[in-house]
């Protein structure tokens, strides 16, 4: 069994300040972890994924996430927010065991103010 908890439904930041979106996971097997972003009227776009290689994963648009097994966390960060980062972000887990479905968190809406 696997589950994901996104700790904040909404996060508000000012442009140019750091972004932190929190995610905790639970998985019976070694997990694969993903962050997806959805901009309005667009499909979900993969930001980055962790698949048991380096624990610090760099993604697109300056985002990165660190896999911390001891804390069962996979928080998403960005040093400096941009207006275009305003969107909904999803933390996703699957079990690295051959075949597994994706389990989504409820999403975090990132609001960026000028």
């Amino acid at each position, binding site marked *: 069994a696997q589950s994901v908890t996104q700790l904040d439904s909404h996060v508000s930041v000012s442009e140019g300040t750091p972004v932190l979106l929190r995610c905790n996971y639970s998985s019976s097997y070694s997990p694969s972890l993903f962050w997806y972003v959805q901009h309005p*009227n667009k*499909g979900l*776009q993969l930001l980055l994924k962790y698949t048991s290689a380096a624990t610090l994963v760099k993604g697109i648009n300056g985002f990165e996430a660190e896999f911390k097994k001891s804390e069962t966390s996979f928080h998403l960060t960005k040093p400096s927010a941009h207006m275009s980062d305003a969107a909904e972000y*999803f933390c996703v887990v699957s079990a690295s*065991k051959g075949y597994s479905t*994706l389990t989504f968190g*409820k999403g975090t809406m990132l609001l960026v103010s000028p």
Partner: protein
Amino acid sequence: EAGVTQFPSHSVIEKGQTVTLRCDPISGHDNLYWYRRVMGKEIKFLLHFVKESKQDESGMPNNRFLAERTGGTYSTLKVQPAELEDSGVYFCASSQPLAGGFTSTDTQYFGPGTRLTVL
């Protein structure tokens, strides 16, 4: 390269009617998935095709939902008869395994979704 496309983008129907959603995956992708997001809830898995075969349909809510993928290309998801609780956004995704077999680490590419409203 074209991404995953879905049609229609929006559909408003009355309870008891039938609706068919279509998904065109990225060309050459063997894996095709359907997901649904009900308002206020998380995105949930519905089913998974490998080519034309249903690999996993454990997420289908009930027998009012029928998914097909004839010929292993596009897929349709039919809801008949629709109920109020079927309202939500239906997403389709596709992927192609790196090593010729399915793995949970594959990147799934998502379409923009179909917003279904049942009145």
